[in-house]
């Protein structure tokens, strides 16, 4: 993350993708050469329901500017019901982040299937733009963790 007067702000974005749908969707956007910014770094998880809200808080603490969580479409979860848990947990987490003063646009849950490479790229472009507009995350970042 660089905040530089003569350089455009480049947010750091962590994307958690479930192995069965969204990670495959991300692979598909690569296979189809659909561009999205380098700001997005993907972490593979077996299911979106594996993502502990703690991971998202940790990312913000360590200086991430946005966190996006992608899973299979509701009803299509490889594990039948995992993404329903995700949906509920993230609703709670996001309302807590609201309370902490973290802008709602810094976090997002998106359903991307293995066939939706174009949607994955479009989502990442859009999300990066949205986070760019918000500027750097200062509220939750632990400055002691910042790399000098």
């Amino acid at each position, binding site marked *: 993350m660089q905040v530089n007067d003569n350089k455009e702000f480049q947010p750091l974005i962590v994307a958690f993708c479930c192995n069965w749908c969204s990670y495959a969707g991300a*692979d598909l956007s690569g296979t189809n050469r659909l561009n999205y910014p380098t700001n997005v770094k*993907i*972490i593979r998880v077996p299911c979106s*329901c594996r*993502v*502990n809200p703690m991971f998202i808080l940790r990312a913000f603490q360590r200086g*991430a500017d946005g966190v996006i969580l992608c899973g299979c479409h509701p009803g299509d979860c*490889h594990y039948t019901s995992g993404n329903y848990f995700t949906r509920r947990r993230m609703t709670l987490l996001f309302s807590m982040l609201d309370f902490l003063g973290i802008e709602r646009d810094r976090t997002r849950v998106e359903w991307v299937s293995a066939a939706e490479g174009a949607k994955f790229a479009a989502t990442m472009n859009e999300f990066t733009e949205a986070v760019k507009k918000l500027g750097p995350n200062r509220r939750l970042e632990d400055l002691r963790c910042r790399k000098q």
Partner: protein
Amino acid sequence: MQKIGVFVCHCGTNIAATVDVKAVAEALSHEAGVVISQEYQYMCSEAGQNLVKDAIKEHGLTGVVICSCSPRMHENTFRKAAAAAGLNPYLVEIANIREQCSWIHKDIATATEKAIILGKAAIAKVHLNTPLVAGESPVAKRALVIGGGIAGIQTALDIAEAGFEVDIVEKEATIGGKMAQIDKTFPTLDCAACILTPKMVEASQNEKITIHSYSEVSAVKGFIGNFTATIKKKRRFVDETKCTGCGACTEVCPMQKVPNAFNLGLNNRGAVYIPFAQAVPKVATIDANYCLKLRKGDVNEKVCGKCAAACTVGAINYHQQDEYIEQKYGAIVVATGFNPIKLDKYDEFAYNQCPDVVTSLELERLMNAAGPNGGTLLRPSDKTHPHKIVFVQCVGSRCDDSKGKPYCSKICCMYTAKHAMLIREKYPDTEVYVFYIDVRTPGKNFDEFYRRAVEQYNVHYIKGMVGKVTPKADGTIDVQASDLLSNEQLHIDADMVVLATAIEPDKTARPLATMLTTQMDTNDFFTEAHAKLRPVESATAGIFLSGACQGPKDIPETVAQASAAASKAIGLLVKDSITCNPCVAHSNELMCNGCSACEKVCPYGAITYQDKEFRTPYRTTVMRRVASVNPAVCQGCGACTVACPSGAMDLNGFSNSQIMAEVDAICK
């Protein structure tokens, strides 16, 4: 001390063109624990794999990171290479710098920077990887086939042929399904009964096959190789083991006004019945809704009882109760089939008003030698020969409204051509009209068959749709339709109208899918694991799909799929055990407080609780309730790890600390 090897792949120019692979290898070589960092043209090639193997042996590596294509592509390749060199395969991590880096970015500087970060994240993760050993779980050598139509019969025969026990569960009193009701088959015009009934007999005589007719699956538990199903044998008030199928009871039954379901209500049968002459098992069943004795409520009352008196072997048992059987299975094949839709919402075709407006399946019975008219085609209303017959295609198929189905029912074009042809053949004085939107005949000898109906049998095919059917006083039926090619509205004075009714999955399919945790589409057809490459497997391991429960199909396609499903099931049953995914959840007993939060979110029922003794200070012990995960059942989704309030539950291969390490590495 960790010794980690890093290998960066060029993938020809796929990666190297946008990512400076040398710079990546160089940057990663400075990471903590990295003892060797190399780049190579094609890591997945034999030479590339040898590079990894040699490094493992030479440097005694404790972890390997490959920066290459997606792990969905070659993770297994590199795991095998590591295992060959003596390293636990789960100590290998892949950094995806092709699909998720070089292919989507254009600027070399930023792409290289990102590739380095992804590499660092993989290194951070591999630091925390632990050796994992895939467990094994035994396979029960028995298959369950749900549905006893031609699909279920074929699947069962194939599995039995391979030497495995098979149980067929059929909800009706006989196996045979829809094919038993059909008169002839297209495009060869074989008699359906002549080719089906030998198969039914074969199934009943095969000592590996057990047929549970008049039965339902009421519960299924377990997982691939290890299912437990509960089968409910509904009471038929006849002892199957005693009944000889002589039919004496059906003759004496005084209640002969029961709509004959096998003939789709086109004639009547007795309250005690055998569905048809070739039924398997050939055993009588009493319909409790109509039986004079059973309808009374108290079977001890002296009412009727004629069937029991007529039975020479004492098979009638008015006191019979439902019976439940529990059985273990290694594989389950779903073959629940289809039904024509109800036509209540299509009364512009006067189906409910006029007995001479029939569905195609009803026409099969009307034309069948074993049907209500003994094979002579007569109008249901006045038992006269029809001289003008109108067929209406796509009734309820291809609809974008709440009344019908959005899909093409696939079989109607062909069976309508068959009906038209058979009628013209047998009754040359009959005029036959077919109203169609498109004639769809993709299949071997299918279009030729349809052309024969037109050219040789002079069936009048009219492009257009019937809009209104009005029965008239003289017994004829006014069919009002459009002829799109001559652009006129036609009125045909027909004697009979046949509706090519859309087909839908059987109503029992949805509750069954819930029981089996398999997926269904919005039309209640079972979803295959992969539309092209895994067409007979469901996404749930160990559950296979056979016949029209997966989508509309004709008989040859159904049989082909039935055999394919059988071969998949056999492939599973021949194994003594199956390898389990080692990336499963596990609970730290010392941290677990037994709250049951994890158990409630587990979709597989893999978590159980046990009381365990723990040592406490001062040489005392305490009993605590702790969670334990069955690694053979757990599929590794991780839902429980987040639900666990005490942090006792963690997931192998994707542990809390591993993911957190990745987050930290990315955010540095």
